[in-house]
């Protein structure tokens, strides 16, 4: 029997996910069977997929042809290093999320568990197929499968009108994006009719058509990723979905869009033009600033995370733009640096954002509350979730020694080289863009302190929170796995870069791994140690040593006495939970400083009010500037068209007659 190739193993994994999903239909109401047997099995398949791509990374591409699809266009599949990095991400993130989901779903919530199980595993399998697809047809089929299954997952709780609305918006934008992607593929075939990716690579497009293909791809994949201005579905759909699904969508599905962008711009299109990078970077910067500002002012914990995902996608687009610029000027070593930052941030974000979404799931189950204004003090009742969420929060704020910092550091390092660009003004403008990245990172810290401080710290804002319970063993295991990934990505950057370097080398022809490995496994020095270096383990060791030594010394030399008393609070007597900042109060400085960025409706109390109240509602400018006018225009056009449809058969006959006459006049031989 011939040995199984990695691509075969991955195909088996996709089939296994489908089979697990179908098995859920066998006993759709048996929650125990589905959650305690099928979901863990799905997690095992995820680990298998992750390990397979880990083993594969660094070897040559493998292809396979499936005998399904169109008559003359069977499904072409191909596993190369770029796909393998994203399969790795998918597999390992899915493992943690599935294990969490095993403990998450309860009786009587939303759809039948069997149906959920089918949709969830179909979602996983179609994401895997998106990554493996090697022709436009297979890609679009898998892409649509992914969109549809995630649409059904989002609308699991379809009894709420708000959730149906979110699902509709998501479906709409997903399809607008899909059309753009399809058009982009169409442009790349250059009329040859060959829809396989190999055929597209062989085409030499003129700069105009190549740019058209790139911009269409940016629009199409941007719609899936949540780039400005097609981001509006994201803060609606993520909170609507059950938490494991939000985690999967934010952590993994958004990355498939990044994968698509990488595939198109570096693999299928050949040589990029420098201004593509400028476009991608500008869109990315706008998205990142927008996302982080809106995430700081949210009062719903899942919306906050959704906006934070928009911010991270923006940062990824910035890295993509920088890589394109370097690549266009053939500065491959620097392009490799920013590409590594990009891939690293994909992995890091998949870990910490899934972790945080799952934590909100546990909080939601324990408290039935999504609004930050009604949470607080949960660290006392849910220590597991609280401490693991802390890891996600630190990583998400881009702070050492966890995963988010490494990618941010690599990105800033590559920005430092941008003055060397051989272009008269680009080399001035691009370094200043780094300032925006720094602002985004600092604001992300603000958002994360708000998220963590208001949910887990302080006094409980509601009586009912006293009954909150900690996450169960399955949930804990899932959270631990993702927190472990976040830590590993944070402290072992050289090992991770050696793994993902194969993808960088495939796309750019050069990588970082050789340089990185030169200085030992503990020191990350992508260029040279003189230039820049970061050793998270030493970093962690010094802080840990200072903490432990400090504690020991203080206790030895002095004492460890401690007693409890009421809080001091400058002697104020009233210390109830209402005295703490609300979610709105905490972000008041942001609303004030960045006032033009928000559309706000505020109501301030006056002294004469019988029942004074304060309210603030923050809305997205894009709704009012872009979407509502578009919707109104669509309505207006339809109203015009209605006039043609009188509903009387005589008029329709007249139309046919007129058409016939005109055709006879026009189409004379």
């Amino acid at each position: 029997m011939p040995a199984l190739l990695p691509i075969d193993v991955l195909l088996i994994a996709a089939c296994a996910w489908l089979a697990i999903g179908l098995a859920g239909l066998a006993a759709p109401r048996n929650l125990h069977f589905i959650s305690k047997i099928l979901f863990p099995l799905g997690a095992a398949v995820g680990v298998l997929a992750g390990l397979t791509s880990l083993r594969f990374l660094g070897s040559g591409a493998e292809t396979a042809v499936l005998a399904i699809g169109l008559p003359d266009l069977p499904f072409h599949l191909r596993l190369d290093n770029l796909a393998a990095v994203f399969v790795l991400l998918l597999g390992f993130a899915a493992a943690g999320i599935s294990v969490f989901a095993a403990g998450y779903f309860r009786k009587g919530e939303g759809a039948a568990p069997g149906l959920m199980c089918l949709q969830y595993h179909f979602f996983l399998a179609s994401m895997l197929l998106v990554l493996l697809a090697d022709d436009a047809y297979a890609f679009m089929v898998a892409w649509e499968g992914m969109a549809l299954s995630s649409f059904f997952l989002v609308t699991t709780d379809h009894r709420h009108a708000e959730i149906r609305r979110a699902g509709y918006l998501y479906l709409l934008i997903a399809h607008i994006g899909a059309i753009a992607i399809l058009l982009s593929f169409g442009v790349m075939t250059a009329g040859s009719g060959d829809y396989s990716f190999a055929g597209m690579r062989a085409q030499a497009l003129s700069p105009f058509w190549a740019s058209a293909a790139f911009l269409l791809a940016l629009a199409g994949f941007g719609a899936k990723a949540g780039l400005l201005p097609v981001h509006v579905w994201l803060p609606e759909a993520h909170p609507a979905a059950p938490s494991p699904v939000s985690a999967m969508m934010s952590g993994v599905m958004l990355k498939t869009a990044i994968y698509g962008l990488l595939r198109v711009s570096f693999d299928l299109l050949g040589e990029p033009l420098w201004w593509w990078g400028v476009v991608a970077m500008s869109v990315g910067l706008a998205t990142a600033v927008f996302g982080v500002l809106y995430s700081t002012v949210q009062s719903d914990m899942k919306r906050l995370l959704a906006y934070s995902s928009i911010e991270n996608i923006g940062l990824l687009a910035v890295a993509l733009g920088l890589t394109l610029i370097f690549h266009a000027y053939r500065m491959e070593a620097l392009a490799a640096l920013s590409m590594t930052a990009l891939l690293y941030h994909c992995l890091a974000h998949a870990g910490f954002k899934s972790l945080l979404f799952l934590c909100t799931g546990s909080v939601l189950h324990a408290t039935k509350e999504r609004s930050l204004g009604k949470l607080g003090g949960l660290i006392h009742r849910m220590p597991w979730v609280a401490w693991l969420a802390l890891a996600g929060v630190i990583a998400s704020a881009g702070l050492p020694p966890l995963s988010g910092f490494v990618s941010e550091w690599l990105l800033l390092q590559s920005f430092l080289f941008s003055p060397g660009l051989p272009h008269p003004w680009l080399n001035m403008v691009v370094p200043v863009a780094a300032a925006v990245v720094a602002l985004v990172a600092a604001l992300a810290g603000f958002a994360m302190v708000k998220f963590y401080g208001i949910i887990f710290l302080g006094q409980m804002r509601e009586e009912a929170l006293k009954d909150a319970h900690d996450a169960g063993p399955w949930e804990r295991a899932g959270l631990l796995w993702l927190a472990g990934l976040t830590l590993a990505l944070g402290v072992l950057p050289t090992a991770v870069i050696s793994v993902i370097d194969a993808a960088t080398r495939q796309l750019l022809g050069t990588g970082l791994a050789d340089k990185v490995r030169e200085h030992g496994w503990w020191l990350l020095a992508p260029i040279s140690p003189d230039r820049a270096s970061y050793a998270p383990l030493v970093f962690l060791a010094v802080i840990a040593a200072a903490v432990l030594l400090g504690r020991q010394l203080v206790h030895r030399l002095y004492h460890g006495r401690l007693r409890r008393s009421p809080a001091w609070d400058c002697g104020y007597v009233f210390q109830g939970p209402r005295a703490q900042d609300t979610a709105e109060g905490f972000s008041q400085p942001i609303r004030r400083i960045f006032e033009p960025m928000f559309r706000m409706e505020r109501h301030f109390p006056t002294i004469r009010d019988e029942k004074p109240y304060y309210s603030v509602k923050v809305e997205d400018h894009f709704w009012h500037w872009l979407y509502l006018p578009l919707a109104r225009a669509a309505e207006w056009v339809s109203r015009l068209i209605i006039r043609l449809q009188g509903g009387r058969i005589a008029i329709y006959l007249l139309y046919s007659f007129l058409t016939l006459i005109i055709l006879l006049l026009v189409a004379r031989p």
Partner: protein
Amino acid sequence: MNIFGFLGQLFAIALALLLAPLLTGWVNQCRAWLQNRSAPPLLQPYYMLHKLFLKDVVLAHGASPLFRFAPFVVFGCMVLACAIIPTLSTDLPFAPAADTIALVGVFGLARIFISLAAMDVGTAFGTLGGRREMLVGFLAEPALLMVIFTTAMISQSTSVATIVETLAHRDFIIYPSLAFAGIAFTFVSFAENARVPVDNPATHLELTMIHEAMILEYSGRHLALIEWAASLKLYAYSCLGLALFFPWGIAEGNSVAGLLLAIPVLVAKLAIGGALLAVIETINAKVRIFRAPEFLGTAFLFAVLGLLVRLLLETQS
């Protein structure tokens, strides 16, 4: 990593731990003189630390383990920061662990922990302090990074040791960009160290406090560690400023003679810097909290100007 390097490193950390409260004491003393008050003794911060360590910790009922853990983390972060900033010599075995960007990360980590700890007990002033600290943080951090970018572009490196070696031990060149960066850095370090005009370390009016509001609930050894960490932060910022803008006198190797020369130079530079800090604090008034964005926005502007000057005028040199 040789043994002398390691010893030199430990010596630098020990010196930081010892000198930091002294620097705070010196600034307080200068300020008292300038304000016509009778000055506290130079060693007053040590007495304070000793007293606080002796006292029992009085913990609020609602305090979680994070509250007790945070002072140690903040202290650890500041020790690390002092370990990687060259004070006496650029030959620091720990220095490759973190470059200047990571240094900003260390300060960020400490800030997050102290803000979270401030929100932990759940009092009105705690959350107020935490929110304001994060506000100052996100305004100051981009400016600080831009300063670092400017200096890094001059020396083609983000490693502090290399920056110092480039500026101090090569041909003397005047970089106009460094002047802008220096002004921006001064602004940022005032904000980051809770000094006038952004915050007042001596204030006891609750509504205007930032740093003090955050640590209201701390007592005993926790408070001592936070105070010590705060003076270490001032020391670290001063040393970073000296390393980036006045690096002369920092030894390159770990020879005993070099170190012996470097210590008095460092002490003299810190004394002058501390006195200047006191002067600036005395002649300025604390601004309202919502003027702080203007103050730090100016710093950011200066930093970006420095960067542009570097890119426009100095790239040929």
